[in-house]
């Protein structure tokens, strides 16, 4: 069996599983946030039971409309605060956490070898730590609150073997964009995507999270990476109990195996308005921008901010461009302050905002007007995603977005760096 099959077998008390089997799995952790939690709480109350199945296995995080941008949002936050208190559920309020997919691993809520579900499509991020993690909706989260179980169809698995070394200023974001470009927006629908190979073994946890985060953009049920020494080091001080590290058997079965070498990979960009419309930055011509956004559950981690700061250090954001930098969590925020990264951003004329989802989903700050273009490190460029349905969103790496903020058009970061030297 492969790692996904092994985790699902354990969670459903089965010795062996095959793709297509339907299991009733025990859930080890469920997460909801401020845009999916309220419907989940309402649905839970309709079930007609008073207590959740296990209050230690539920986490609620405010991150989307944070801090509350309207009275409606404030009411939803209040409702979730009340539910968390009533049920004694771990709750990350404004200023106590950040973007859910950063907070969950950072605060030790993601355990390798377990089944995790989140009422957010990017819950697949947690596969970076060797957990089975997938996105669900609010009603299903309510059912898990009540029963601790979920039905799952064992997915077929795509394996992606990655070899080679990244060139400077080419990142895991460029890799996952190029994979999505090849496989397509529905190329992994219902499937597990397992990343392996020497490049993965040498990749930081931040990079692994970026890869797993975006597997849902090709329809995947989950993205997953076998846990190793890098996983163990990341978890040091975050979780205090032993975990089961599953590995895929040598003879594990895969629907398809893709072999990718990153040595020649260039900075990539997903053009409007689908995530699989991917091209090298060098091939898109002159694309002027009005906004540059560095942040989100895809690329708002310390490593991403360091890279953006390296590109922006001592430079000024081009007139006519609004550059927004949003650290993915309070922890990332304070580390970035300690390292002097915030000074680099603010000196460059970028606006640093509090840890939250920001403009990514077009619900709160940093929206776009008709005819405007944003280059963003986030994960979706759908029509209307970041505000006006007449606006355009391009997705790229933190290095590319930082370089673009300086030049005012979508720019290969190596172009800016060459000029520096």
């Amino acid at each position, binding site marked *: 069996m492969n790692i996904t099959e092994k985790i699902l077998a354990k969670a459903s008390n089965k010795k062996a599983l095959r793709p297509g089997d339907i299991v009733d799995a025990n859930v080890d952790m469920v997460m909801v946030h401020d845009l999916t939690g309220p419907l989940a709480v309402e649905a839970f109350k309709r079930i*007609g039971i008073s207590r959740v199945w296990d209050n230690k296995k539920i986490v609620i995080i405010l991150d989307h409309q944070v801090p509350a941008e309207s009275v409606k949002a404030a009411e939803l936050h209040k409702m979730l605060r009340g539910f968390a208190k009533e049920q004694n559920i771990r709750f990350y309020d404004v200023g106590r956490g950040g973007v859910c997919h950063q907070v969950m691993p950072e605060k030790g809520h993601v355990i390798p070898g377990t089944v995790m579900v989140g009422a957010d499509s990017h819950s697949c991020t947690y596969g970076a730590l060797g957990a089975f993690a997938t996105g669900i909706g609010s*009603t299903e989260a309510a059912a898990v609150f009540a029963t601790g179980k979920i039905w799952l169809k064992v997915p077929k698995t795509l394996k992606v073997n990655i070899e080679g070394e990244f060139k400077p200023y080419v990142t895991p974001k460029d890799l996952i964009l190029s994979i999505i470009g090849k496989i397509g927006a529905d190329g992994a*629908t219902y499937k597990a995507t397992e990343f392996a190979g020497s490049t993965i073994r040498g990749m930081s946890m931040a990079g692994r999270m970026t890869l797993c985060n975006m597997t849902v953009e090709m329809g995947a*049920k989950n993205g997953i990476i076998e846990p190793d020494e890098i996983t163990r080091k990341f978890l040091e001080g975050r979780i205090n109990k032993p975990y089961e590290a599953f590995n895929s058997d040598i003879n594990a079965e895969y629907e398809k195996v893709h072999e990718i070498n990153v040595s020649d990979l260039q900075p990539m960009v997903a053009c409007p308005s689908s995530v699989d419309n991917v091209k090298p930055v060098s091939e898109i011509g002159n694309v002027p921008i009005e906004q540059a956004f560095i942040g989100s559950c895809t690329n708002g981690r310390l490593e991403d901010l360091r890279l953006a700061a390296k590109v922006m250090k001592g430079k000024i954001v081009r007139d006519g461009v609004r550059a927004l930098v949003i650290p993915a969590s309070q922890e990332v925020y304070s580390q970035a302050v300690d390292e002097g990264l915030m000074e680099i951003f603010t000196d460059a004329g970028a606006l640093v905002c509090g840890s939250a989802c920001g403009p990514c*989903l077009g619900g709160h700050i940093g929206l776009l007007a008709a005819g405007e273009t944003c280059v963003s490190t986030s994960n979706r460029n759908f029509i209307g995603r970041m505000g006006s349905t007449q606006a355009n969103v391009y997705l790229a790496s933190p290095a590319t977005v930082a370089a673009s903020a300086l030049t005012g058009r979508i720019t290969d970061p190596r172009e800016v760096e060459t000029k520096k030297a």
Partner: protein
Amino acid sequence: MKVSGTVVKFGNNVDTDVILPGKYLVLISPMDLAKHALEGLDHTFAENAKKGVIVVGGKNFGCGSSREQAPLALKYSGVKCVVAESFARIFFRNAINIGLPVVECPGISTTVENGDKLTVDFDMGEVQNTSKNRMLEVTKLPAFILEILSDGGLIENLQKKMKKE
């Protein structure tokens, strides 16, 4: 279980941001959500859907965010069923969980036109296009999913099971 309605057709990769834009996610009432159904692609959709329509989609219908507000908006705008070449998995589960019938039907997007009358028979696993006198097979849903749909959604199904216990 059978549902009938007039076709409103869309293309491939209809995502949840166009079905229900992010700025409306603070709305809680299904009827408020319904007013903005598919607003990202067609401002007149919510008004037209009131008569009872069947949405036909291409590949990967409902891709993107896990927002359940997307199928809720469709259901309460008057959509009786979504028939598509294929669905994104979270949307598919969400629709069933809130009691909006959804079914995969390979070939549907090339054989129906806006305004055709369709009847979807979930037990027989077929779609009748009465305007074109044509029948297509659908991917049959397992019995436990049909039971959730006929109960009206996952919560209703769970209530029923808990009463039995």
